[in-house]
């Protein structure tokens, strides 16, 4: 088990590694916005911005009054994605989970990220879903056993991965 390592980064980061964000299944959508915002350390002013943003972006409407346990996986990803991307940061790290969303959501999420280019300076997305990767990224890194084995534009990286996936 690795017990050592270093992180070098310039700028502040936000992450979306899981859909959990400390949220409570029994609490309503609105309450969970507050919970997640507290966990992520948003300031009071920012929280009211996040609430408005969620209302607009997620199209959850009335569902925001219902407990989180009544949400489908797609609804959860919309909520979590929106909260996590609501406050602008320099670097955004996202894991696999974004693929849970439906096509409509993915299109909106892509638009949102594109609009944020300029504010968010870097989006880092880990996924095996090619269509998601092609949608969001223009550069690709292929990893094997924790090391970068290929670096190039996204189409070439996917190509490389496809050709070598039996040995990676």
């Amino acid at each position, binding site marked *: 088990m690795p*017990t050592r390592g270093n992180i070098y980064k310039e700028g502040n980061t936000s*992450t979306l590694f899981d859909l959990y*964000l*400390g949220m*409570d299944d029994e609490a309503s959508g609105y309450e969970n916005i*507050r919970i997640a915002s507290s*966990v992520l*350390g948003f*300031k*009071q002013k920012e929280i009211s911005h996040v609430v408005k943003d969620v209302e607009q972006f997620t199209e959850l409407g009335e569902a925001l009054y219902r407990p989180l346990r009544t949400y489908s996986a797609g609804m959860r990803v919309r909520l979590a994605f929106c909260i996590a991307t609501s406050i602008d940061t320099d670097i955004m790290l996202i894991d696999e989970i974004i693929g849970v969303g439906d096509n409509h959501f993915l299109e909106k999420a892509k638009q949102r990220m594109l609009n944020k280019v300029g504010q968010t300076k870097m989006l880092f997305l880990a996924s095996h879903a090619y269509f998601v990767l092609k949608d969001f990224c223009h550069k690709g890194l292929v990893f094997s056993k924790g090391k970068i084995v290929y670096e190039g534009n996204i189409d070439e990286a996917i190509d490389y991965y496809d050709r070598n996936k039996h040995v990676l």
Partner: protein
Amino acid sequence: MSLYSILQWIYLGWIDIKGRYRRTVLGPFWLVATTFLSIAMMGVIYSTIFKVEINEFIPYIAAGIVAWYFISGVIMESCNGLISNKFLLLSKPIPIFLINMRILSRHVIIFFHNMIVLILCLLYFGRLQDVLIFPTILGIIFNCAIVIALGIFLSLICARFRDIVQVITSLINILFLITPIVWNKKVLESRDFLAEWNLFSHLVDLIRSPLLGQIPSIESYTISFAFFVFIALLAYISSRKLRNFMYWL
């Protein structure tokens, strides 16, 4: 780490309590009911065993148990503090102090719920006017400081060495029995050093005595303060040494 972020995590502790009792009929009064039952049953049985006056004994047990539930509750939960927040900690660096603040705030809320039982009990036995408010608050603050320092230390060490979680769980059960909570240290007679040397009997006493109308001994204050300094130092050292605890989550 700002005052605002501390308030946010206190709020999260409140949310936890709310979440735990959602969709139950009695809600947090389940806690009150549990405390009430344990005080009533232990009070009757132990006062019979030790052949002491029940009017004296039940308020004693009640104040002791409420204090003990608070102290032991924070300690037990702190063991899993970092482990159960794994997902949060992996996606965002959060000061350990805040995680422990959330646990503490949860137990302070539970403590005040349990106070209802205690107040009713003191009222019933006509002891309510004896309560020394200022020393009680001082006792609570002392205990908060100690359990938060102990919590930071334990949450770190338990994340790294998982066996410690089991050790603490068994120790807490033993401590409940060997600390004068459901028995008075007077019954030890010439062997009362067994209680004097037990740190936790002093910690419990800081809350219990003023609730029963006595000022805790200076000894209890000094010992508790010395313990706090020691544990705070330990917490500081462990947070330096185990800076990479994330790898062990």
